[in-house]
């Protein structure tokens, strides 16, 4: 039997970059084939070429043994190739059912859209995915996890024979991820092939049969998942071994810098209490939707709080806005760097100066040269890879963007730094760098509060781990000797099926 898909010597160039360089993969019927690689390794590009979104420059693709020319996404769909996008392809104003059947609505007499059939079919699909939401609800009302499920339902609404999933779990909770895996197993049993684009090791070992590893647009290896190890795959991804070992030298945590008591910002945060000492890294762990980011925003003055007390250096504070928190020596690196952190069209110097305009000004006037000098200092200190401080931040890689964001806050010389998801969408190399920077800051006496959904990251960084669930802090443990299981047990034990926020109809 011919393989479901055989891609031979696929080459794709974008201006200035060889995105894919003679990459070949084969996918068998019923196989889950992982594409693994760092950000920018070309794995999404390959997925998009197979899914008909990009055209290849060179190479050929055989689909069930027949050569496939340049096709569009709908043409690919008609052939049974469906792609689930990393970023939303949904129309927020339309209902779930409308989105799932966009452009291919079942019709009745005079081409009238058969609303009933469409809703019923969508409900069935959503049920298969383990999410029972009324298909007549608008996508705009859904959480990002729910929207991702709709995205998957949309791909499955056609007769699929090759499903391409591009980082499908980025927005999913653990339960939803499990449901997705169930669906994948059911599909593959029926002979459907799946291309699974991801950089999450654990998922690849759970669900995939084989894995192709890409690095800088080249294929560096194909392995059977059963016959490989995380270490080997990381070696193939980066060409070197990376260890995120815990730092064993114990730091002496000093006096209490930040004390949060019974903080409440309904509906997301109901009761959060913890403290952070000088020279200490405290990680807020918990499931997506447990209210960690909202807790940080509330204590930073970016979200109104309706109860509880916050103390900085023993003094009660009540911030009217982030500017007050900044004056009290607090900085916050937000979770979503594109949406809430950076000014992508502006250059590095200007981005870093945003928090410290008075520092780079003499009297009333902004001094471009001192802004640039400040930026150059951070480019050197944080090893930001860029030709100059005048480069637009949007042109940098994810890891370097994250460093610029960090620099923007370090420029304020905070005593307390909140970092929400320090390494989301950051490649392995830059990740190690960011860990190093954060450890150095703590060693210099800064109090760090880190929110992370990445448990290995929490275990690597934390001096203390505070676990949140359903908007409450539910437990605390020292970082030394903590295990993923222990953290997860705490986090899940106290998580009800529906968070209070969801019950209240709010969406993060």
């Amino acid at each position, binding site marked *: 039997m011919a393989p479901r898909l055989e891609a031979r010597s696929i080459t794709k160039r974008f201006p*200035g970059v060889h995105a894919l360089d003679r990459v070949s993969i084969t996918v068998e019927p019923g196989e889950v084939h992982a594409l693994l690689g760092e950000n920018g390794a070309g794995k999404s590009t390959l997925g998009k070429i197979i899914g008909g979104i990009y055209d290849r420059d060179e190479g050929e693709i055989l689909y069930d043994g027949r050569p496939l020319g340049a096709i569009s996404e709908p043409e690919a769909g008609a052939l049974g190739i469906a792609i689930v996008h990393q970023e939303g392809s949904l129309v927020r104003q339309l209902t779930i059912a409308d989105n799932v059947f966009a452009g291919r609505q079942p019709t009745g007499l005079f081409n009238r859209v058969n609303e009933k059939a469409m809703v019923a079919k969508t409900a069935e699909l959503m049920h298969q995915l383990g999410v029972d939401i009324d298909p007549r609800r608008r996508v705009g009302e859904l959480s990002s996890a729910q929207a991702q499920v709709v995205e998957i339902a949309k791909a499955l609404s056609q007769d699929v024979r090759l499903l391409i999933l591009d980082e499908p779990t980025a927005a999913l909770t653990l339960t939803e991820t499990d449901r997705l895996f169930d669906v994948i197993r059911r599909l593959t049993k029926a002979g459907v092939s799946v291309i699974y684009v991801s950089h999450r090791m654990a998922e690849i070992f759970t669900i995939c049969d084989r894995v192709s590893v890409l690095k800088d647009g080249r294929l560096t290896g194909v392995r059977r998942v059963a016959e490989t190890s995380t270490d080997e795959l990381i070696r193939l991804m980066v060409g070197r071994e990376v260890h995120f070992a815990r730092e064993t030298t114990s730091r002496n945590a000093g006096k209490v810098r930040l004390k949060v008591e019974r903080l409440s910002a309904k509906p997301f945060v109901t009761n959060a209490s913890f403290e952070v000492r000088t020279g200490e890294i405290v990680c807020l762990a918990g499931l997506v939707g447990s209210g960690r980011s909202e807790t940080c925003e509330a204590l930073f003055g970016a979200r109104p709080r309706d109860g509880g007390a916050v103390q900085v250096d023993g003094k009660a504070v009540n911030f009217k806005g982030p500017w007050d928190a900044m004056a009290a020596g607090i900085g916050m690196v937000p979770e979503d760097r594109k949406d809430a952190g950076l000014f992508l069209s502006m250059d590095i110097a200007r981005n870093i100066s945003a928090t410290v305009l008075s520092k780079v000004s003499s009297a009333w006037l902004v001094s471009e040269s001192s802004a640039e000098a400040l930026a150059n200092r951070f480019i050197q200190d944080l090893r930001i890879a860029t030709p100059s401080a005048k480069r637009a931040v949007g042109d940098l890689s994810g890891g370097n963007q994250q460093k610029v964001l960090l620099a923007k806050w370090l420029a304020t010389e905070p005593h307390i730094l909140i970092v929400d998801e320090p390494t989301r969408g950051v490649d392995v190399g830059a990740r190690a760098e960011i860990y190093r920077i954060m450890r150095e800051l703590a060693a210099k006496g800064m109090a760090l509060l880190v929110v992370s959904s990445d448990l290995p990251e929490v275990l690597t960084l934390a001096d203390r781990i505070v676990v949140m669930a359903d908007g409450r802090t539910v437990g605390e443990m020292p970082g030394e000797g903590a295990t993923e299981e222990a953290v997860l047990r705490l986090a899940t034990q106290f998580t009800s099926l529906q968070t209070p926020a969801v019950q209240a109809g709010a969406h993060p």
Partner: protein
Amino acid sequence: MSDSVMKTAPSSLPVESPRQTPALLPSRIILKLANSRELMLFVLIVLLAGSMAIFYPNNFPTSYNISAVLLNAAQNGILVTGMMLLMIAGGFDLSVGSTLALAGVWAGVVVGWWGWPAEAGLAVGLVVGALAGLVNGLIVTRLGINALIATLATMTIFRGLTYLTAGTGVTPIGNDFKAYGQSVMFGIQMPFWVMLAVVAVGAWSVARTRYFRQFYFIGGNTRAAKLSGIRVEQLTTVGFILMGVLAGLAGVLGASRLNSAVVSAGIGVELSVITATVLGGASLKGGEGTVIGGVLGVLFIALVQNAMIINGVGIYWQNIIIGLVLLLAVSLDRFKQAHRA
């Protein structure tokens, strides 16, 4: 290890974003012009003025004609300064024409009907403008209504208030009052010199001061600006108030120049000002543009209008030409983005 980080990071930048690069030969020159909207407008203005001077030596380069062009540009030059600031912060104001009329009419009423001194009339006009701006600012920031909708509504409301205040306008207003708009310096009437002062101060402060730099951050990414400690609501309101004051200023100067407060003053002016602002380099998304660019946009439009009148092609063509130039300018931006690899 850090070495390999340096190597891998930059090579992984634009991989996921497809950009097309048509390698055309004249693209370099176009790119240079596209990179600076101010430079492009300046070149266009020089070319247009130069060719007009060559082809119509008796009509165009006369002191009478030039001073008329500059005087005509005065009103929009004042308005464009405020509009550019608002658009840099990602907002804009459709009510400027109505604010202008309302301010002019109130100045006329207090001076012409109630006999207040001329200076009080000017002050009243500016205060009315500031209040109108404050109303806009509060609607946008407190009620969270989009600037387009909010100022579309106040545009109608302010125009209605203008009619309500003085249905037929106020004519004449008074000799002291008209002196402010009609006195002449170096052959050009006062409104031009006021415009020059406004533009000079505006251009300098928007480009250089710490305070106004914050507006670029608001327009660049409102959420990030807020989380960076910038008081977005407060500054946006200030932006609207400044726009209102400038509209008030344009209103009283106009009333003073005509010695008449006209209720229909400034109808349609909002669109020509926004046209000039976009032509001058502002984007509807905010975060970019300079006051100098906006003023060059106003001058360019004034020049095109003047040229059309002189060469007799017909004033009907002027709108078509201005629209085409606007499209050309904005498509240059696309071109620029495509080449930013």
